[in-house]
Structure formats: C-alpha cells, structure tokens
C-alpha cells in the first residue's frame, strides 16, 4: 500500500498506566499517509497526537498494531536518515550554539558537517535567525528556540517529516510567514509530512488532508480532504472555500 516514503499506522493502540489509572492514549488508530502527501493532525489537547508521532518515530512501542515508514520499521527508517522531526518542546542542547544545534542530526547520522555548511547557513536564514549563529539557546526567546528546532528538522533533507506544533510559540504574523515558507519547502522537497497543530487555519492552508482526533480514548474520527490548489498564497486565507473547510473541521472537532 505505502509508496517509497509513506507513513502507515495500522490499528495501533497505546495505553499508559499512571498512578492507579490507565489512559488509553490511542485506540485502534489507522492512518495512511501516501508518499509526498501532507497530512495535518488536529485534536483537543491530550488526545494522543504526540503519542502517535512518537510511535511513528520509533521512540515508543505500540501495545498492538503495526507502524511502518516507507515499509521499514520506524527505527530503521530513522537510521537511514530518511526522517526529520521537530518536537513540541524545542529540546535544544543548552551548550550547543544555534548552528551546532541545527547540525545535531548530522552528527548523529555521522554525516560530515563540512558538506552541509551552506545548507545550515541557508536554514538559519530561512527561519530568520541570521546573526544568531553563535548564540546559545539560553540567550534566545521561546519562539526563536522553536525556529531553531524547525531548522534542525530540515537539515538532513528528510523524505519524511514530523512536526509537532512547530509554530506554537510564534506570533500570528511570523506564523503565517513560516506557513508560507514551509509550503515552499514542501513543494520543493515533496517530503511526506505529518504536522500536528492546534491551528485550524494552519491545517487547511498547509495540508492535503486533515485528520481530526478525539480523546478518551484517543482516536481519529474524521479525515477531511483539502482540495485547494497549490501553491497557496496568503490570499487563500480569505477565500470562501477556505472558510467552508475551516467550519467543517471545527464541526468535526466538536463531534459533528
């Protein structure tokens, strides 16, 4: 079913045993992201979005069900350098400069940094941090740190990209800018992308499909296709079709 770089989750369940209680974070969730597609995952806080992402990255094991990236086990795909990820938490190393933090995946994968110097510089430019190359994370604002994490997720030219609320700490204007930039990068690279977001407008603007989740237990209740033409410009935000889709997603989130 999955193409060369698709994401596939097949009836995946994951529960957590807390202090005396059990949380069903994911209950029989199936999701198929074809190669080169852009899927947005939206749902109330605590519904299991980050959990789903961690399973797809191989950071956590499902209780039951199958997860594969490009037909490989998640960890094997990661080792092959196919994936990129930006976590909800920037999770930067406080002793590494902006530049060095962005280069971390290269260090992990054992790719020489020299060959990628230009790439790193252009990513720093892209996320608007030129001039802060040598700064330490402790000297940056929350939004700036998040932008470092976004740049880091792109440094390996990933074929599969996971983004967990990457723009959560950005202001609305910067967020729109980053949305446009992300779309540009995505069109150029056609990486299979799974974006977790709380912004309905962001989801509609960026995605081919929006998967809506509900909690208790965590599950995907609807998948809504976004048939808007690409590339989508900033004017799309005001179109009637855009608003209709937004309303449809809002309805799905409210359980209609």
């Amino acid at each position, binding site marked *: 079913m999955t193409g060369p770089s698709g994401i596939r989750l097949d009836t995946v369940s994951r529960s957590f045993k807390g202090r005396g209680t059990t949380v069903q974070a994911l209950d029989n969730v199936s999701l198929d992201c074809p190669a080169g597609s852009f899927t947005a995952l939206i749902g109330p806080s605590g519904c299991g979005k980050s959990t789903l992402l*961690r399973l797809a*990255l*191989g*950071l956590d094991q499902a209780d039951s069900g199958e997860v594969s990236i490009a037909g490989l086990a998640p*960890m*094997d795909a*990661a*080792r*092959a*350098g196919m*994936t990129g*990820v930006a*976590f909800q*938490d*920037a*999770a*930067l*190393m*406080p*002793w590494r400069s902006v530049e060095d933090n962005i280069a*971390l*995946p290269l*260090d*992990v*994968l054992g790719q020489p940094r020299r060959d990628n110097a230009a790439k790193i510089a252009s990513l720093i430019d892209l996320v608007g941090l030129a001039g802060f190359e040598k700064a*330490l*994370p*402790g000297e940056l604002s929350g939004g700036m*740190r998040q932008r470092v994490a976004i740049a*880091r997720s792109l440094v*390996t030219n990933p074929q599969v990209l996971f983004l967990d609320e990457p723009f959560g700490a950005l202001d609305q204007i910067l967020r729109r800018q980053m949305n446009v930039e992300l779309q540009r990068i995505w069109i150029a690279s056609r990486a299979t992308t799974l974006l977790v977001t709380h912004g309905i407008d962001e989801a509609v603007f960026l995605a081919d499909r929006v998967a809506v989740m509900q909690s208790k237990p965590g599950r995907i209740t609807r998948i809504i296709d976004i048939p808007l033409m690409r590339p989508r410009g900033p004017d799309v935000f005001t179109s009637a079709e855009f608003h209709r889709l937004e309303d449809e997603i809002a309805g799905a989130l409210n359980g209609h």
Partner: protein
Amino acid sequence: MATETIAARGSSLRTWLVLLIIWEICGRLQLIASGALPAPSSILMRLWIDRADYPPHILATLEGAGVGFLIGNGIAVAAGVLFALFPMAARLGRGVNIALFALPAIAISPLLVLTFSDMTPRIILAAIGCYFVTMSSTVTGISQTDQRMIEVIRAYGGGRWKILVLAQMRSALPAILSGLRIAAPNAVLGSILAEFGGGGRYGLGVYLIGSLGRAEPDRLWGIGLAATLIAGLAYAVFSLIALRFTGATKAVTVPATAPGGATMSWPLWLRLLLSTGSVVIPIALWWLLLIAMGTPAMIAKTPLGLFEYLFLQPNSQASQMKLLAALGQTLPLTIAGMALGIAFAFGLALMSVLRPGIIRGFMPVALVTQTMPLVALTPLLVLILGRGPSLILWITISVTFFPAFVTMAQGLSMVPRAALDVPRAYGASLFTQLRLVSVPASLPYLFAATRLAVPRALLGVMIAEWLATGTGLGNLLNQSRGYLDYGMIWAVAVVSVLLSVVFYQCVVLIERPVLARRGMRAAQ
C-alpha cells in the same frame, strides 16, 4: 546585579578581615587554651623560618596525591559511565563501590605500608579517596540528562553510544567537575593519611608527625596551612572550570518527560542474583587481592582467617567483647554528628539560594574546615575543646558538612530557570519559592548527600577517637596497631565498612519510596 556582586564580595572580605584580626588578638594574648591557637603573624613567621624544609615535603605529598588523583578519577569516570549505561553492572558493583567508599583510610594505611613500598600506599589511598565521589557524580550527571535531548538523538536513529557522546557526557560534565573538586582535597587527605602510616622520609604528613611531639603549635598550624592551601587550590581550579560549564548547561525549560526506569521491572530471581553478586564480589576481591599480593598470612587476614580470629580462637570471646564495647561508644556519636552536619548543610544550601553571597562568603570557611587535615587539626582542637565527646561531635559535623553542602548547593543551582519563574511570576516570596520549587527539586540531592555523609562521619569519629579521646573503634584500632594485633585491625576495618553499608542501605530504603512518590529518580 553587578553592584550587588561587588557589595557581596566586599562584605565577605570584611568578614574575613574581622576574623583575622580577632584571631591575631587571641593569639597574641594567648587567650585560647593558653597558646594552642597561635596568632597568624607568628604562624607566618614560623613558616618563613622553616621555608627551606617545605619544598621536598610538599612535592612528595603532591606527587602521591596527584598520581592518585589521576588514577582514581580515571577509573571512577570509566566506572561511572559503565554503571550509568548498564543498570545491571551498577547493581553488581554496588557492594564494591560502597566498600571502597566506606573503607576507613586510617584502618588500612598501616596494612598498606606493610605491604607496599614508598609512594604506592599514598597513591592507593589518594585514589580510593577520589573514586567514590567522582564515580557517583558521573552516574548522577549521566542519568539526569534531559530526556528530551536523548529523544532527539534517538529520533535520528542514534544508539547508546551517540547518546553518550553527544548528550550524556557533556551534560554530566558539571556534575563530574563538582565531583572532582571534592575529590581533589580528598586526594591530599588520602596521601597525608598514608604518610602517617609511615614509610618515606618526605611528605607533609611525615613532617607533621615529626613535629607532633614538640609542642610547637605554630609549626603544626603552618603545616596544616600548607596542606590546606594545596587542597584549596586544587578545589578552586575545578570550581572555576565547573563555573564555566554550568552556566551554559542549565536547561532553559523543565523537562516534562518522566525519566525512564526499566530497572524496577526486573524479575525477582534476577534481583536476588544481583544482590548476592554484589555482596560476594567485594569479599572475593579481598581474598583474591591478598593472594595476588602474597602478603604474609600473619598480617593479611582472609575472610576465613578473620572468622577464625573472631569466633574460633580461645581469646575470641575477649576480642568480641572489646569490639562490641568500642562500637557502643562510636555509634551514637556518629549518628548525632552526621544528623547535625547534614541539617546544617541543608539549611545553608537553602539560604544560599536566597543569598548567593553566602556561597562565596562561606565556601572558603567550609573548605578550610574540610581540607585542614583532620589529623593536624585534632591536636589543636583537643587543646581548645578538651578530650570530651563534644570534640568528636565537632569534628564529625565538620567532615560531614562540607561534601553535603557542595552536593546540595550544586543540586539547587541546577534547578531550571523556568521552574523558578512560574512561582516568581505569581509574586511568590523567596520562602515560597524555596518551598514550592527548590526544596522538592533538591530532594534527590539531599538523599545523595546523606548517603555520602555516612562513611565520612564514621571516619571523622574514628580519627578523633584515635588521636584524642582514646575511646571507641578508633582507639581500638590504634591499640591493636601497638600490640601488632592484626586480627583486630582487620576486624575494625571490616566492621566499620559493614556499619557504613548498613547505614547506607537504610538511607536507600527511605529514599526510594519518597522519590518514587514524587516521580523522581535517585541521584546516584
């Protein structure tokens, strides 16, 4: 901020000046114990007169301490990494670790001197003095690495090795450095204790022993000062390096991910096996070492030989009685001194959060009480405090206090900025900040400090008993040395190790459920 710092520095300078002047007056007028506390000026004068004597002694002590420091810490860091990465190895090695930590240096120094020649006993004792502190801070540093960073590395397929190299070693660096700065004075102390045991013509310990009989307090103080200076310098160097690294390492946000802990899910049989192993290994090592070194059986007691000495020989009964009587004198004072030392350290560490100036002002004082080799200090303290239990109590407090203070101050300084920002944003008073953030966050360090304190307290009591009060285990050790009663020396050494281990395990038993309830993990 800057003016605050300068003001704090100025005030601590003032404190020092005042103390120095009071000391000078007391010394000049022979106010304290009729001249047991000489004036700083006469100590300096004597140092100047003796200046030609010092270099060979200082060099010899530096050599023993330095080589021991390198060897001990090299082994310690390697072992720490091993233990942090493989919980099973940590469980198996626990027995050896605690035994090495609890090994009373004064008890084995005579045995070492009989077995080895010149520098070796000093190097061994210095290395042993470093090992536990550095090993455990390496484990702490590595296991407290921010889980989020580890996840990023794992997300890119990084394995154990990459995680160790890219995240854990670097994030453990401040902890390791703070371990090294405690280890540095320990190495000096270890070397000097070995020098007391005899062997070799040079070394500050040799010099001190030689001057001990001659009722010249100013020379004793001079030698003590020289030893303190060496230890203090070593401490300062590592503090400076640590300061440079801690600043950049402090996490900006609080990790929300619970630290992973697979160890609790081990099956019962495995846990039993590992526990047994951890007890058997040190005993096996003890046995093997004696065989490997070929020490004469008269001096070297194997576990079997010791059992024979304590239970099977005609005078075993008498030996047992002596040992129990000594224990009865040593135990209560150890517990009391330790409790006071830790309470004092905890209070001061908390105060240092409110008033960072305290660390700057107080650290040097704490350092002096710590690095002033106890053996040099004890005769002087005897003259001032007398030979009663209060002397033992004071000495024990001062040995326990310093490492506990450093451990807890370090723990508190690692509390992330964001964790303090939240209550501060709601206008919480400093006290509320302490109660809500600093105290809970420092709990793992309080327990770790307590575990660290146990054997030190015992060592402090024994040194004081040996040199001053003539009671308890310390005295028994000294007497047995005189009577060439090697069985008893071994018995005291083993009993004091066992005592430390029992104490240590008691702390662990309390620590586990308390930390588990708060979703925290023990700082090794």
